């Protein structure tokens, strides 16, 4: 591309630098200072006293919950999401764009509405039961199964999109070559298709893992408040204007995020499969 166009990227560089670095620095600053609503500019000082929040049993358990659920969600999304992405790729339906849009279409409805409606039908007595006469979920409201179900089916579109993008880029001739060299379709999948789609799996996994790890609305609604995620704790800290603790916990999340970004760059140099 013409070097002349480099100038087009300048405004974005400024925009990104300011809006990416300033917030992160602000978070770190608030997390490690005594700044709160009652402190005036002159009295600001460094403070590590907020670090005690990290050792609270509730924080640790919430972190554990977030991590376990994020990992489980990512894994299930990977299995099912990959399957769907592969089926879309194999489908004889020519217009893949329409299929992909159908996959993300549920995301256009409000997340809270969707989650509430799931919570509704997971309860013992619900609207579907009154229509069908039986309960499709049993009574799983408030259990880990309810939360997992909600997380998996909310974030799966990210996995499907990323994996599909990677699958689409695989030259069909490679698959033919594998068959030609004596690989059965199953073996062809494991030896050629899957390794070549790994980029998309990594990106998709991160796209699922991070919002699950940092999210709070879905566990709050679907566990009926019984399973606390780290996001719920951060959310509460912000609501009750304890910005220091909130920011500190957010910084921990941020470390995960930066780690993920590094991981992505290792697998996928220019972020080609990130959706």
């Amino acid at each position: 591309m013409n070097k002349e166009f480099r100038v087009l990227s300048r405004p974005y560089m400024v925009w990104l630098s300011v809006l990416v670095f300033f917030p992160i620095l602000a978070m770190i600053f608030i997390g490690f200072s005594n700044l709160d609503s009652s402190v005036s500019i002159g009295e600001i000082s460094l403070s590590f006293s907020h670090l005690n929040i990290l050792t609270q049993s509730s924080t640790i358990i919430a972190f554990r919950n977030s991590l376990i659920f994020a990992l489980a969600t990512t894994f299930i999304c990977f299995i099912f999401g990959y399957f769907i992405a592969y089926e879309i790729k194999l489908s004889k339906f020519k217009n893949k764009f329409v299929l992909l849009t159908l996959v993300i279409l549920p995301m256009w409805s409000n997340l809270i509405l969707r989650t509430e409606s799931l919570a509704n039908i997971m309860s013992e007595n619900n609207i579907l039961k009154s229509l069908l006469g039986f309960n499709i979920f049993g009574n799983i409201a408030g259990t880990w199964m309810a939360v997992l179900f909600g997380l998996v089916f909310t974030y799966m579109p990210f996995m499907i999109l990323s994996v599909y993008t990677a699958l689409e880029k695989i030259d069909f001739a490679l698959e033919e070559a594998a068959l030609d060299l004596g690989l059965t379709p199953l073996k062809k999948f494991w030896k050629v298709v899957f390794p070549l789609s790994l980029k998309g799996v990594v990106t998709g996994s991160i796209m699922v893992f991070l919002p699950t790890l940092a999210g709070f609305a879905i566990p709050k609604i679907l566990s009926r408040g019984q399973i606390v995620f780290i996001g719920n704790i951060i959310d509460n800290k912000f609501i009750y204007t304890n910005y220091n603790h909130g920011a500190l916990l957010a910084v921990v999340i941020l470390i995960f995020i930066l780690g993920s970004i590094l991981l992505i760059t290792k697998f996928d140099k220019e972020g080609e499969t990130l959706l």
Partner: protein
Amino acid sequence: MEKQYASIKDYGYRDFTKLNKIYSIIKKLLVILIVLGLYLSIIVIAIQSLNESRNLSSFTRLSFQWYLNIVREQELMNAIKNTFLVSSIATVLATFLGTFFAIGLYALSKKSRVLWMLLNNVPILNADIVTGFSLMLMFRLLMVVFPNIFGLFTLVMAHLFFTMPFVILSVMPKLKETDPNLMDAALDLGIKPYKALIKVVIPAIKAGIFSGMLLALTMSIDDFVISYFNTGSGFDNLSIWIYAVIGRRNLTPSVYAFSTLLTLFTMIGLLTYQFLQRQKKGKNNEKNSTSSVSSQS
């Protein structure tokens, strides 16, 4: 001489033809189940919107009253209007600016392009609550100069911040796919660089721009946390409104009706698009069939 048929077993493979049939049935079942899972909440919302009763836990009678009621719910209508205003402005701006920024980034040397694409990932992957809160802190600083900044402006800016990276991400691979000589050819024909950009490059990356736009819209329309921190002047979008109302009071079922309409209209739009495409293709095929032999590869 009798015909001999080669069998797959002669060549060291087992015959899975029967298993394959079962497998394909299981596969179809699984696809249906997963798609049902993805759409389960949407289906329930649709059922709730058709329930005459405000009671969400039992279906009394079929009724379309909540659909008619949408226009009468002032706060809801206002929230819908705001959502569309913010999301459409943010999406159009993000698509427009994002495309040109992507072209700019693409023109950079490979090393610095990788670096900036790395930073480009941050708004996508960052936790909403962190992004929302920190953007608010930023805009607070600007309030010294522009006291009435909070509202539409800050909302659009915040939405731009997290939607633009999606556009750039979608456009970039398409830029890489374009013929590097495309631009030179246009310049060679005496077209000025920026005109060539619009006339030659943009049409070549149209698909990427469009999918970027779709993603940007998807992200923008359902955003709650970031909007929440950056709104002002009563400029609440649908997510903020729903969250505030659902927290303590009853949500009018018209919200479900609206949500269902949005899904339905998009689906109808998609199907129409698909139908039109097919018709167009059919016509082209007819035209071409006499003159060309279709390629066999």
